């Protein structure tokens, strides 16, 4: 009780002190130009410090929303880019525009493995959103895998980080292409094989999707060359470090090739 009765006068004294000093400073600010400059400058610094901190906290809590908004915006840009590329090709070749070659469907990753020999992902989009088996999955930083199972609201994706998985890739400079696969040692390192020996590949050269498949669009950046070595005397094997960080995948795009059926029908009709 004594503590309480002693605390209240102390608190009111502190509040009174702050009030009187603040009032004095307001008067000083109004009266002295130099003091106004210094006091307001200090106040602005304190304000800026406070705003920065609150802004950081608010950003932290808004990351999820912000990521989703950016993913949606990215999806729209991909679709617009695909439509523009199709229109440009049609204009160049005087062909009839048949619409974009690829349709992009945004999806969230709800499960992902990277430390097994056969890795997979589960995405939160399924047949209700137009996802079908065999579609490619990419992110803003490269190829992710291929859809191999679909339910109404989810799909199962075989990751590129899996034995037997490969993607047709090319060197950005020379255009030389070959299959790129995962040797199964480290999630970020792939092997690009069947590159002719006379092709010079320097460390840092960019590797892109070749577009020689019905699954992935061309020119998606995949990674950069780390080193090369001659394999079997007739070709090179390039070690490529992926741009994609598979451990931190959150937003991806499922890609539908709008001409896939037509191309496959053509293959089947060949003798």
């Amino acid at each position, binding site marked *: 009780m004594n503590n309480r009765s002693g605390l209240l*006068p102390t608190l*009111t*004294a502190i509040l*009174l*002190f702050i009030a*009187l*000093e603040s*009032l*004095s*400073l*307001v*008067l*000083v*600010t*109004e*009266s*002295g130009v*130099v*003091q106004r*400059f*210094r*006091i307001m400058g200090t106040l602005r610094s304190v304000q800026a410090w406070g705003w920065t901190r609150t802004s950081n906290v608010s950003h932290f809590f808004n990351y999820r929303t912000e990521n989703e908004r950016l993913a949606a915006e990215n999806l729209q840009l991909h679709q617009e880019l695909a439509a523009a590329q199709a229109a440009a090709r049609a204009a160049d070749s005087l062909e009839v525009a048949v619409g974009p070659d690829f349709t992009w469907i945004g999806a969230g990753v709800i499960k992902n493995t990277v430390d097994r020999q056969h890795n997979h992902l589960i995405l939160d989009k399924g047949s209700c959103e137009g996802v079908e088996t065999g579609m490619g999955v990419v992110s803003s930083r490269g190829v992710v895998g291929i859809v191999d199972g679909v339910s109404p609201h989810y799909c199962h994706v075989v990751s590129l980080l899996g034995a037997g998985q490969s993607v047709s890739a090319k060197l950005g400079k020379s255009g030389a292409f070959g299959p790129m696969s995962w040797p199964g040692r480290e999630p970020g390192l792939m092997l690009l094989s069947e590159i002719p020996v006379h092709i010079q590949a320097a460390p840092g050269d960019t590797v892109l999707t070749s577009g020689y498949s019905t699954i992935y669009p061309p020119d998606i950046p995949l990674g950069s060359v780390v080193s090369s070595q001659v394999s079997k005397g007739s070709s090179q094997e390039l070690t490529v470090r992926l741009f994609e960080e598979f451990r931190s995948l959150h937003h991806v795009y499922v890609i539908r090739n709008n001409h896939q059926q037509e191309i496959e029908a053509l293959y089947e009709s060949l003798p």
Partner: protein
Amino acid sequence: MNPYRNLLYFVLLFLLQLAISDYVHLGPWVTVTLFPLLIVLLPLSWSPHKVMLAAFVMGLALDVFSNGVMGLNAFAAVTAAAPRRFLYRTLVNNDRQDETVLMTLRQAGFIKYFKFLLALAAIFLAAFILLDCAGLRPFGFVLGRFTASLLASTALCLALSLPVQNH
């Protein structure tokens, strides 16, 4: 001195402070203030709230009637008045004897009185000079002005403390 004479002396000291502020110009290095003595002379029975309010009113009155920056003396006076009770109990009445109505040089003894006055003057002048210079003067000048002002103000306050007697 009876209480009325003390009150009259207090008013005279305030008028003297006003005259010093308006008419005594000792250059940029020295600021003479009687506020430490004015704060000492406030009754010891007053709570910190009362002391701070009184100091604020006196400082503001001096700011209004002198040609200085409005609020400067009020700010420094409140800064010095706030820890008065703490300083008194730490530096003067540290054996917690009965507190008298008014603190005087004879009752407290020269050393204790001097330390108390010096502490109040240091706090007042530190607040006053730092706000007055607003960080635009070199540290050497601020320190020199503080030291010179502290010596001059403490000496004058000590001299003017002699007529004050407890009743």
